[in-house]
């Protein structure tokens, strides 16, 4: 499943984003919204949609390969499903240093520091909650990835600017946002 988007910045498709739900998450509006956000940051988006099996995600990411992989999830299983997915993605040599991030509602309770640390340890470069401030953090993150991509810097360096605690603090604050 994919929805091809037009890149708003001319024909150069240098910024490729793969956007996906987690394997058990059927929510769609978060994906539609994040696709628009990515496009507005100059990314060409392959939106894999809801309930994407891990192997389908891995196949698409290995084939492209993307500038960034974004998992968006709100069903409360994200801390489990996301960790499994990134673990598999990191086994693919071409994805070892690709920025891979996850955001949304990560547990069935409010997001916790444990979930963020668990997901970072599993291989995500950044973990976002679902608040307005998370959305601006995500936006800043996308700009950094884009800048580093055009500068030719190793892509994995862009995402380590935030400590897990900062991310957790942002995730714990609630407001309108990513999901």
């Amino acid at each position, binding site marked *: *499943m*994919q*929805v091809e988007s037009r890149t708003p910045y001319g024909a150069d498709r240098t910024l490729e984003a793969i956007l996906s739900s987690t*394997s*058990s*998450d*059927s929510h*769609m*509006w978060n*994906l*539609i*919204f994040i696709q*628009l*956000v990515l496009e*507005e940051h100059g990314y060409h988006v392959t*939106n894999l*949609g*809801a*309930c*994407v*099996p891990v192997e*389908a995600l891995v196949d698409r990411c290995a084939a492209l390969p993307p500038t960034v992989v974004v998992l968006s999830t709100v*069903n*409360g*299983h994200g801390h*489990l*499903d996301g960790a499994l997915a990134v673990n598999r993605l990191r086994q693919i040599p071409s994805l070892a240093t690709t920025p891979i991030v996850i955001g949304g*509602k990560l*547990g*069935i*309770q*409010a997001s916790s520091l444990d979930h963020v640390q668990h997901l970072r340890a599993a291989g995500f470069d950044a973990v976002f909650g679902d608040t307005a401030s998370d959305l601006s953090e995500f936006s800043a993150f996308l700009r950094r990835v884009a800048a580093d991509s055009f500068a030719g810097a190793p892509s994995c360096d862009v995402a380590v600017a935030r400590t897990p605690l900062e991310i957790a603090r942002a995730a714990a604050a*609630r*407001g*309108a946002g990513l999901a």
Partner: protein
Amino acid sequence: MTSPVPFGEVITRAAARGRLIVQPRMGMGDPVDMRAGLLAVKAAKASTVGTITVDSYTRCNDDEAVRRAIAGDGQLNGYPIVARTSDVTSAIVKELRDASFVIQVRHGSADPQRIFEALVAAGLDATEGGPISYCLPYSQLPLADSVKNWAVCCKTFGRLRDKGYEPHLETFGGCMLGQLCPPSLLVAISVLEALFFCQQGLRSVSLSYAQQANTAQDLEAIAALRAIAAELLPNVDWHVVVYAYMGVYPRTVSGAMGLLGEAARLAVRSGAARLIVKTAVEAYRIPTVAENITALEYASAAAGQVRRAGPAEPASDTGILTEARTLVDAVLELGPQLDRTLTAAVGRGLLDIPYCLHPDNRGRTRSYLDRDGRLYWSDTGALPLARRTAVAAPDRNSSADLQRMLNYVARKYDSIQNAAPGQINDHERNQ
């Protein structure tokens, strides 16, 4: 063994007594917690139906993930009805079900064969879903497979009749993507799924409609739903079930309760028999049992303040009935048997859900929410309808436009501080 009172009959009896039936979404990984939740719903000060919501791993047939979750912290977002033995589930059902309290299973699967086997084994006679509504928004499965699966599941479910049950199936088609789907398409899909169920042998169904962003428009849509159902479902036991808003939910308690109260009044005014509630914490997380009980009792009280449930009040006519009938007729023109035509109907874009990412959805339609919360088509794609019904809709939404439309209802209800029930939508009622 004595046959239980059929689900549809319990709802119809309550409606005849002028009581709106209220129902939560509720599912716990542990059977002990599930039983306690159902007990609390039964004891609530309202006419209630119990719900067993199935977890999302079971919905995806991911047995390994269910096992991991049960072996780990046990935190599942629903009841793993396939992993639990039928003895465990049926013991809960037998203990709690009686002539005034029935239980429905809610799941969300496009491949629900094992869920249906499990609920038949446990003697559960009511569930919901549909070949379109549980595939296009929720699954990667090809629609053709979902249609086949649902036809088989209707047959499986029908086996309950041999045991003295009258199985009841509710369409989820009135809720495509929860928000921003114009009402005529919600009505059309809900009717088509009900007709599909009946063609596959069921005799007791309910038709869903999810509250959208303008009450006058919703009243008109539900009147259209009832009119078409009455035409196409003769000799079938059917009722209408309203879902409290399924989109981005208000974040304040007063906003959430205001929206729920409006849903309850919508249900009564439209002549619906049943309401599925949302809670004050909907914007944040899965509700606790206590939060669900509060919502059930609040909704029941709000419904009681309108008048006794009964016949619908007359609705305005902006053309929803004509549009919905045109969509249904266009699908039925492909042939009378929906199991053979639904996939082609979606493939040709006769049914096309705005913004839906499923590969079998054409994805050429777009909707637009005006300043009064009314939904219009900004692009009808290949739908057999006039090109667009919105006057001032932009050709392409930015993320900010989309967020504004997605958050319209939440913003509206959150901005009304301490409003008393009945005051919220007076301006809409007068439109």
